[in-house]
């Protein structure tokens, strides 16, 4: 009960936006008549497929990124990785500056078009925020707490699992959430390399001069990003251990 009382603003602000824009869009969608060309993309069955494709793409990439980046981040914070860490961190910083569309296009030239390449591109692009947040999250755990754990007889592994990781969870989860939002947006670019997503709705709308498609795609992907960000926020709040800020 105490936790609910301290709800930060963004927990109710985002749902408000989602409800307002979502309802607005649904009402418009219901009331509008679609030409046959528009129907091809915006008809409900096609629209539903497109949305699901987008979500599938995002989630697949997320799962893979998390499975790679978090263990990698943990390994890099261990004593033995000390010499390698700055190299990797600097490389990650430089990589952040690379444009998503550039990465995806280059990968396509190497791996061909389609869903799989899009996933690889998204994974590469989103590894960096999660990796950085994992490293920062673990590094910011108070050294004295770790010393106390080893001092009373916790093994290195037990200290990692029962002390360091739980205390790093808020920061790590924040990184996952940021990466998720980035992924939802970047997934729109997959349309350029032949993988369907809500971006396809947008590009079709641009190419064929159909504002309805364009606006639908833009609003829907915006809503999706908001929903995922909000859900991520809830997970953050629930998963943060009690005694941690």
């Amino acid at each position, binding site marked *: 009960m105490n936790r609910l009382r301290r709800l930060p*603003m*963004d927990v109710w*602000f*985002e749902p408000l*936006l989602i409800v307002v824009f979502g309802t607005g869009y649904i009402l418009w969608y219901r009331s509008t008549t679609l030409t046959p060309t528009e129907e091809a993309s915006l008809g409900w069955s096609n629209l539903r497929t497109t949305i699901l494709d987008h979500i599938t793409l995002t989630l697949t990439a997320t799962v893979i990124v998390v499975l790679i980046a978090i263990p990698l981040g943990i390994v890099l914070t261990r004593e033995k990785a000390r010499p390698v860490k700055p190299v990797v961190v600097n490389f990650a910083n*430089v990589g*952040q*500056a*690379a*444009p*998503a*569309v*550039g*990465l995806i*296009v*280059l990968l*396509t*030239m*190497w791996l061909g*078009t389609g869903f799989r390449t899009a996933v690889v591109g998204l994974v590469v692009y989103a590894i960096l925020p999660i990796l950085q947040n994992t490293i920062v999250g673990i590094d910011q755990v108070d050294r004295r707490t770790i010393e106390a754990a080893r001092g009373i007889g916790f093994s290195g592994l037990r200290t990692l699992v029962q002390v360091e990781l739980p205390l790093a969870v808020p920061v790590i989860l924040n990184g996952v959430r940021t990466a998720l*939002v980035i992924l*939802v*947006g*970047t997934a*729109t*670019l997959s349309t*350029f*390399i032949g993988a369907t997503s809500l*971006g396809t709705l*947008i*590009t079709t*709308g*641009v190419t064929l001069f159909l*504002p309805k498609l*364009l*606006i639908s*795609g*833009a*609003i829907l*992907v*915006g809503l999706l*990003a*908001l929903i995922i*960000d909000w859900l991520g926020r809830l997970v953050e709040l629930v998963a943060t251990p009690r005694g941690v800020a």
Partner: protein
Amino acid sequence: MCPRNTVAARGNLVNMWNYLQGRGEFLGFLTYQHASLAFQTVLVGTIVAVLIAIAVHRLPLFSALTLTTSRVALTIPSLALLALLIVPFGLGVVPSFIMLAFFAAMPVIGNAIVGLRSVPDSVIESARGIGLPRRRILFSVSLPMAWPVILTGIRVSTQMVVGVAAIVAYVLGPGLGSLIFNGLSRLGGTNSVEMALTGTVLIVVIALVFDGLLVLLGRLTIAKGLS
């Protein structure tokens, strides 16, 4: 598919070198265009952001609302916003500029508000106490103290904008993105890889150079006595 033997790899390097030959001016122009676009949009975004922050920072409710809005605004995918903007504004520079300036402003608003609000009340009070008028306090005390945080926001903004500016080529906007998209449209054809690679690498270079310049700016302008 990716060649694995060194002969073909050396072949790739040769191709790249051939591509770059004679295109120096062309590439230089695109690079300048891209950098200039990023610079101007970050500048406009920063100014708007700081103005909003100044207007809002003393009111706790509006500050929280603006902070949350700016953070939420960053979840909007750039392609989506760009597409929405071409409906009223058509193709070309205008929607590109507006979209980039919008995204540039968001991190800076957040940091500016936080920075201005973090100036201790006691400092403001003593400034008022010795008779400094409100505006003087803002410009001589609050903004300089908030500057390091604002500068961090500008750095985040810049890196983001330099990267996102790659997609404005889709709506015929300026910059190095056109190299990437042209490379894509020629997929499998001559120079496609070289174009995309050059575009990407040059964008990374611009981002790193700008970041370095901002760090330098920070060293020069942050008053000693503030960490």
